[in-house]
């Protein structure tokens, strides 16, 4: 069965078309844009909150987008077990919405970083990662605020519940501070909620799907979703 991806478009989203193109044109799944002022998720099986600079990143990243009308539907959908993936700014919106724990700070270097990074896949017991056949993914990041923060209790809970899905690492799976591009605690690049139906990640899988770019590891995440959500 072909899944349908609903790609939310906020004012200032700029990876919405990349995400749509990746899942629909490259991977051949169904996809539809969802304007942020609407409330109908149009029978999507998976919601993508794409990257970008929703509301100009004013106040705090994701803080205003979190109150867009569509977010009430996304929160209901997630609370009923629906699958949601927030990429970059989408991850920041999920944090502001309280669908994932923690908060995002400016990169430690204060620089906007745009480069390929290696991710260690820490938990393969989620629909997002179950079908990934490698321990490491090479996926680009592009953000100024990817410095994940949470208090010690929350970090312990994330570890205890195996909610940390992706950590910045070296190519040979060494998770060390020197491979951490932004200062995020525990090298966190992506986490899921306790129920494991909501994923937030700073790296952009949609930017590493098209074979013409000679990097396709992002496909593995979308394929994993497609292969596992109906099971």
């Amino acid at each position: 069965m072909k899944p349908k991806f609903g790609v939310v478009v906020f004012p200032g989203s700029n990876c919405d078309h990349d995400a749509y193109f990746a899942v629909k044109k490259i991977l051949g799944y169904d996809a539809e844009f969802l304007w942020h002022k609407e409330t109908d998720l149009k029978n999507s099986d998976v919601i993508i909150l794409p990257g970008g600079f929703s509301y100009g990143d004013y106040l705090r990243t994701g803080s205003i987008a979190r109150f867009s009308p569509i977010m009430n539907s996304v929160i209901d959908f997630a609370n009923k077990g629906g699958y949601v993936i927030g990429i970059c700014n989408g991850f920041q919106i999920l944090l502001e919405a309280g669908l994932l724990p923690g908060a995002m700070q400016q990169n430690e270097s204060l620089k906007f970083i745009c480069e390929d990074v290696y991710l260690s896949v820490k938990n393969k017991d989620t629909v997002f990662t179950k079908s990934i056949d490698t321990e490491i993914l090479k996926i680009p990041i592009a953000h100024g605020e990817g410095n994940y923060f949470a208090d010690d209790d929350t970090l312990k809970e994330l570890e205890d519940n195996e909610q940390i899905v992706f950590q910045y690492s070296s190519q040979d799976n060494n998770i060390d501070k020197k491979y951490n591009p932004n200062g995020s605690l525990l090298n966190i690049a992506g986490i899921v909620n306790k129920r494991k139906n909501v994923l937030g990640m700073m790296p952009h899988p949609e930017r590493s799907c098209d074979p013409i770019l000679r990097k396709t590891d992002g496909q593995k995440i979308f394929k994993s979703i497609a292969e596992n959500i109906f099971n």
Partner: protein
Amino acid sequence: MYKATVIVKRRPKILDPQGKAAEQGAKLLGFNNVSKTRIGKYIEFFVNTPTLEEAEKEVKEYSEKLLSNPIMEDFEFKIEKA
């Protein structure tokens, strides 16, 4: 009508990359007595409520729900008759 001013600050224990960068600039300029620079937000707005109590309630809720992030920030506010 009341005028509210809200100050949002990052909690003391949380690293403030912007404050740190500003302080590096301060040192370059020769401000050697400066330390512990922290950068927060100053926000002002008007509230049109009949009583001060209602204004306070609204300012507090606005600050909690949107202007600050309870995970890493604290806020304080002042309200005066406008």
